């Protein structure tokens, strides 16, 4: 079994890298794939909190690197889904504890046993970022429809193109508010796509449920009613190679046409 290593990155902090990692990972595992989530945000780990596994962590990524434990011992199984594992980051160390080569070794090992290895990247473009992308062959760039986030995403895409291992990258636009797009207060999805000239893999609407789910330690994909949860499930299916139409995220009816247009445009682009 040769798993796919996908790094989830953004450049800017707070756009939802960790939330995206947790939800896509959970959604993939729900579909029966074996998934391992690797948190590389050493010193500022949050992925364990989002999954509600904080109290189960004994060994971390740093312990594996420093050979205090076996890789298998450091993998924390999810409470609900046995297909999902977490390799947590150490909270008491910093980014210099793990080098790019060391992470690459670990992802190579994980590839043998798992279908998907999702690497949650820290914010910034320094060593932590370089380490996180080292083992990955694919990338998902998370951004929000804000100028600052889009600029940072542009910078990140540039770095990903320059990096050796990354074969493909996709864009995930997070925290989209259709009502604000309608009143021209927010960049629309196709604006962002045009600026970055990068294929989107998903559009996630803003959802207050994300905050509650983070606090509860339960990914939002487990909540079937949530729109953001559905959007994440669709992203997971697209990652798996399925052809899933983009979710209709807007409440006002006027925008439906716009989004349909955008979708048609995407299909045309794909055909070309």
């Amino acid at each position: 079994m040769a798993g796919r290593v996908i790094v989830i990155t953004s450049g800017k902090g707070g756009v939802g890298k960790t939330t995206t990692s947790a939800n896509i990972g959970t959604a993939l595992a729900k579909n029966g794939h074996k998934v391992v989530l690797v948190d590389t945000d050493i010193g500022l780990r949050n992925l364990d909190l989002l999954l509600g596994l904080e109290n189960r962590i004994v060994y971390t990524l740093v312990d594996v690197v420093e050979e205090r434990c076996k890789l298998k011992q450091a993998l924390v199984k999810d409470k609900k889904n046995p297909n999902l594992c977490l390799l947590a980051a150490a909270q008491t160390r910093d980014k210099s504890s793990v080098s790019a080569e060391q992470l690459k070794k670990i992802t190579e090992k994980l590839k043998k046993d798992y279908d998907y290895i999702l690497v949650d990247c820290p914010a910034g473009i320094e060593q932590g970022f370089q380490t996180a992308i080292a083992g990955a062959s694919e990338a998902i760039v998370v951004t929000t429809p804000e100028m600052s986030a889009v600029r940072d995403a542009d910078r990140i895409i540039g770095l990903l193109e320059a990096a050796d291992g990354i074969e493909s990258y996709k864009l995930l636009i997070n925290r989209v508010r259709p009502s604000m797009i309608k009143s021209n207060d927010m960049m629309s999805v196709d604006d962002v796509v045009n600026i970055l000239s990068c294929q989107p893999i998903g559009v996630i609407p803003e959802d207050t449920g994300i905050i509650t789910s983070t606090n509860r330690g339960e990914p939002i994909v487990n909540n079937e009613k949530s729109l953001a949860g559905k959007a994440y499930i669709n992203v997971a299916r697209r990652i798996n190679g399925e052809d899933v139409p983009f979710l209709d995220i807007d409440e006002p009816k006027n925008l439906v046409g716009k989004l349909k247009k955008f979708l048609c445009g995407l299909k045309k682009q794909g055909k070309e």
Partner: protein
Amino acid sequence: MEQYNDNVYVIDLGEINTAPEIIFELSSILDKDEARNKRICLKLGNVDLNQAQILSIKSLISGIDSILSSIDTKSIETEKVALSLGIIISNISAENSHEVAPTMPYKTAEELKEEILSQENKQPTKEEDYNIVEEVEEIEESENNIEEQSLEDNKENTTEDIKESEQKEQLEPQKEDVEKQNNEDIKKEEKEEVFDELDVIFGSSPAKNTFFDMESEQSRYEEKEELSDIIVPEQEYTKEDIELESFPTKYIKQTIRSGQVINYEGNIVIIGDCHPGCEITAFGDITVWGILSGIAHAGAGGNQKARVRALKMNAIQLRIANCYSRRPDSLNTVYIEKTNSFTPEEARIINGEIVVFKIND
């Protein structure tokens, strides 16, 4: 026959030797609620099962929303069939050894009590043990509620008696001390008896008499000086006790925040809160004068008698010597309110498990 391992549910049918019996036994076990939504590890003996039989077992398990995750079997035939159906063959004991995550949530004193009682209830053949536990309960009651109480009256005592004794107290405050002294003597005898009997329950566990120290502390921690003589009679001092006392102590007056690590080869006293994400490791005891929410490891050198104390125990993980426990998932509190009144708590090893005791007034 069954044991828990977090969301893994192990069903041991190793002693059953025919296929129909296995299916019959399994269906009765699967009727229980605790088997639902679990990954089931099936332990089978030397029985040859064919494809249809394993498939019917599988459908039984999926009928209650569980997954048949692995089979442990002595029969090569069964192994072959299971493998052809895509079921993992595992040696359960080997699989468990990989599970490092602490699977035991830490218990409260009440849970421990209940557990002991229920265990004893299940096995009424051990009458001797059962009596002891009853006695234990009585003693606890007497110590928790009532200062003046004689040994003989234990059973008949009701709240009315307490009121009476309280009235007496008000009327004759001078006699109080004398009476207390008498009671102490009685209790001392009582305790020593129980200690001997405790060995029966707990075996030669290193934590054998700690259970009662706390109970007496609970009721009268204001009388510590007197109590200290009673709690641990001198002959009961072990090497570990002396070791603990001879440790140096480090005082830290600050809030310990996420990512901060404190290691000390002795006792640690922290005046302040310990936030989630911090790690405190001590060879001796850890005492937190505040809210403990991080990871605390007392007795890191292997001292089983080390303890963790805090005004509010909310630790993500507690580790004492070589015992690990994690915070129960039901205690998923985002934020602990800071109040003026806390109920201090203490964690220690009882019978190989970490138990958290509340110090009630």
